[in-house]
């Protein structure tokens, strides 16, 4: 709280200035090079034929190439503008403690180790936040975290998929995110993937979605941010999508021939199976639903390309989807990325973008999407820009002037850790990797989870595909597990924090730094040292404190 005052003052100034119309919203290019680039972008837009696939021209202009700072500034200007219009005041910037834990969990899916936390909090460099963002984006855990976010969508955990090997696709996703493969190339590779799991793990997507409707639903939802599902059987009730629109998209998958992982599992090798695209319509059992319509292939809201049956169809779809001027592709990823970081998107549900469900910040979404596309669909650039914004770095503590706001981003949302984040964070402190595995492995049987982490995740998902960052989805069984199992109750855990003779204040600080990435407040230290003094042994008291910390909301959530 100590460094809030100047920041609050700054925010106030910005707020006032924008009230007076003093803020330059257009983010005009500063250098010659930027000017040139903008002209080029405008020329490119002018050259695009005015059909329905033309992206909406952003009202706010493009910023310099790969200039995360400029894009961050643009984000702040647009967010401030809306806040001012709505007369909602922004919360101050967050403390270093909040920022540290938030950045670690949002970018790498795990809390910082105690020594990293201490080093960051003690560092005095004014650019330490930007440096930490850069460091975390280069951490291998960045790809691991995003692979967790995506695997739930790409490989539904339904009973039909129990023979699908998840690991190869997870590894592949992780590698692509860590290599920072441009999102358009990334998605192109996935959608057009053929071959065996061994040679091209991306084909797993088709093994885990073995019907034309699952593929059409998934691809439009995850990569274009559009829910076509309803249009499968009737014209979409809320959006402009007609049934023919659905089956026009489905036609691009009509020649896909995925092997059956179940058969392969019966004696074969599950890495040798894969996906081919033939020359005729797939004859696989259940690949087409009963109500399937056969209509010529047509891009969603766009033209019908000429297809030759001897050529694979999927690359043609993938090329259209991932083109810089595709009206959906960049927006969908920007909205999704925003939701990873803020808990909610500009459009919610994040994959249900249509005219009847407009974004909270249409200009900003368009501008960020345009910059994302113009900068080679650079995912790390997108994350870097958003994380460097003041909007991202606001505290999640509401103030009187914004307590009711839940869509203008006046303060950060308190997000609930996903099961993966919770497991990995517990493991950082408790070395739970082994304890949890032992526990979960018990009686798991052949059909059981692949490892302790997967078992923990499935237990917390309790049959759902994913949990919601803005809702506490865990129930009684999960609370019982966290309270009464060795996950948090192993008496040996405390040894890493306390050696005989350590001052109790020191031990308490170690626990807080390791679990909550902050030092205890003086009040907390006072209360907890007296707790230790009254206990029968210090070790027992430390165990109690650690137990309470690990079961607390503060641990289970990102503030």
């Amino acid at each position: 709280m100590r460094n809030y005052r100047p920041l609050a003052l700054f925010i106030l100034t910005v707020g006032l200035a924008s009230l007076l119309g003093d803020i330059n919203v257009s983010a005009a290019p500063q250098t010659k090079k930027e000017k040139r680039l903008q002209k080029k972008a405008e020329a490119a837009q002018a050259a695009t034929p005015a059909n329905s696939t033309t992206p909406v021209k952003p009202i706010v202009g493009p910023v310099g190439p790969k200039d995360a700072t400029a894009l961050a500034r643009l984000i702040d200007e647009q967010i401030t503008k809306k806040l001012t219009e709505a007369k909602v005041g922004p919360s101050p910037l967050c403390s270093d403690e909040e920022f540290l834990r938030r950045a670690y969990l949002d970018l790498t899916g795990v809390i910082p180790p105690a020594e990293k936390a201490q080093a960051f909090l003690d560092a005095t460099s004014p650019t330490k936040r930007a440096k930490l963002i850069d460091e975390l984006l280069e951490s291998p855990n960045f790809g691991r975290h995003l692979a967790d976010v995506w695997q739930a969508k790409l490989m539904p955990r339904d009973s039909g998929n129990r023979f699908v090997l998840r690991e190869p696709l997870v590894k592949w996703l992780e590698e692509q995110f860590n290599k920072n493969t441009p999102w358009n190339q990334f998605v192109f590779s996935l959608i057009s993937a053929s071959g065996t799991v061994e040679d091209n793990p991306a084909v797993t997507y088709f093994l885990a979605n073995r019907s034309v409707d699952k593929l059409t639903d998934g691809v439009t939802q995850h990569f274009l941010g559009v829910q076509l599902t309803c249009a499968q059987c009737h014209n979409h009730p809320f959006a402009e999508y007609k049934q023919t629109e659905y089956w026009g998209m489905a036609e691009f998958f009509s020649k896909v021939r995925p092997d059956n992982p179940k058969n392969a599992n019966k004696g074969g090798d599950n890495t040798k199976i894969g996906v081919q695209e033939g020359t005729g319509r797939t004859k696989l059992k259940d690949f087409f639903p009963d109500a399937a319509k056969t209509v010529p292939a047509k891009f969603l809201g766009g033209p019908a390309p000429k297809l030759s049956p001897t050529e694979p169809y999927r690359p043609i779809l993938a090329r259209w989807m991932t083109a810089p001027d595709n009206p959906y592709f960049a927006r969908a990823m920007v909205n999704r990325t925003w939701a990873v970081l803020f808990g909610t998107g500009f459009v919610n549900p994040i994959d249900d973008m249509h005219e009847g469900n407009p974004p909270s910040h249409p200009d900003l979404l368009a501008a960020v999407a345009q910059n994302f596309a113009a900068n080679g669909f650079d995912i790390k650039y997108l994350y870097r820009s958003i994380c460097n914004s003041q909007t991202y770095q606001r505290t999640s503590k509401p103030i009187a002037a914004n307590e009711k706001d839940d869509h203008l981003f006046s303060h950060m949302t308190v997000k609930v850790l996903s099961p993966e984040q919770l497991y990995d964070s517990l493991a950082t402190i408790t070395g739970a990797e082994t304890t949890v595995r032992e526990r979960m492995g018990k009686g798991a049987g052949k059909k059981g989870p692949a490892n302790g982490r997967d078992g923990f995740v499935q237990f917390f998902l309790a049959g759902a595909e994913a949990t919601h960052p803005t809702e506490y989805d865990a129930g009684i069984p999960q609370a019982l597990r966290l309270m009464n199992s060795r996950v948090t109750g192993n008496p040996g855990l405390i040894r890493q924090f306390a050696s005989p003779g350590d001052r109790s204040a020191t031990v308490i600080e170690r626990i807080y730094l390791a679990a909550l990435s902050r030092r205890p407040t003086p009040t907390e230290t006072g209360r907890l040292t007296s707790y230790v003094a009254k206990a029968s042994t210090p070790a027992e008291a430390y165990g109690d404190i650690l137990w309470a910390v690990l079961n607390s909301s503060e641990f289970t959530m990102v503030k």
Partner: protein
Amino acid sequence: MFSDHLIESTRRKFLQLSAAGVGAASLSGWMEVLAARASAAPTPTPGKAKSCILLWMDGGPSHKDTFDLKPASKGAGDFKPIKTKAPGIEISEHLPNLAKVMNHGVVVRGMSTPEGAHPRAKYNLHTGYREGQGGLVYPSLGAIVASEVGRPESSVPAFVSIGNRSYGAGFLGPKYQPLLVQDPARGVEDLKSLVAEGRFTNRLELLQEMEQAFQGEYRAPVITDHKTAYERAVRLMNAKEAKAFDLSLEPTASKAKYGTGRFAEGVLMARRLVEVGVPFVEVTLGGWDTHQDNFARVKSLSEQVDGAAASLIEDLKVRGLLESTLVIWMGEFGRTPNINTRGAKPGRDHYPKAWSLAMFGGGVKGGRVYGKTDAEGATVVDQKAGTTDFLATVCELMGIDHSKKNETSTGRPVQIVDKPKPFTGQIA
């Protein structure tokens, strides 16, 4: 926030409440205090049924192969009808034990509902609303019963769902969220603290202080929801009724007649839960989506249902609980009257236009049929019942006022069941 005064005052309040007989043996003061505060809620209108067991046939069971056979029709299928203990009611030959208790049950043959895709149909039948309607998440029947009939002071959650996540409390909030038992053989795990009672109380006090401090600063609803989940968990740890979740305590002989497998175990657990006063238990049996190989699969599923459900009804009768326990057998829709021959083995597809469900006990007048389909089982010709008609009937059987309006978090009033025409009078 970490003031000793607060803990002292909590402790004192707790002691006062204990003295008043509110919290008996307790692990934690604050949990009990909160429990006591909640019990100020109004008591529900007494109805005949105090509990409901919903046997959910996931995937949509074929009505023509279970409770509405049409041996003379085009798509009659392989199964023969058999006589039941209720004169005039015939059901599938693969439900022989249910046939013997049909005198306690009502077959509803005129269900006709709007949704033909699994998720949307399941949502509709569980909540009475269409998915996404008005931008709200609606409470499912279990949560409605939990909030209307559940005793707030009860240590066991009022809504237990076995074998499936099911549909939850929606805008009614986490207090009425189902306790999910994924595998009945394992019951509810981790019910016992790893440390002694006194120490566990100390731990909870520390936790309470941390929660208060955090909630005070960040004021997010998720923090309250976390607290609610923990309170419910601690109360369950404390409850002697929690033994109902432990199937190893059931005598081997009575276990055996329910059959084997998760569904049979789930039904047995449902009976044990109703015995300790749990008002709503949902048990799921999946596999009814028989687009392919309909007859072999429905036969095997029917056998699983038959043993378990008939044993349940008999056990409830013997214990004097059948009058106060409504047992419902249903899925999200029926299946096509015609047989598809697309695949190697004949199947039936989704069919929400006309289908059947069955209800036993809970004050229904046994041995009756409500609703009638045509010769093919394709159209309801008499006593048609929609989703809300059915849900309102269940509410009336349980003494719940379905015209009551619950408020969403933003203060919007939402009627428990919207515009129903209940048929309670014809079956109870």
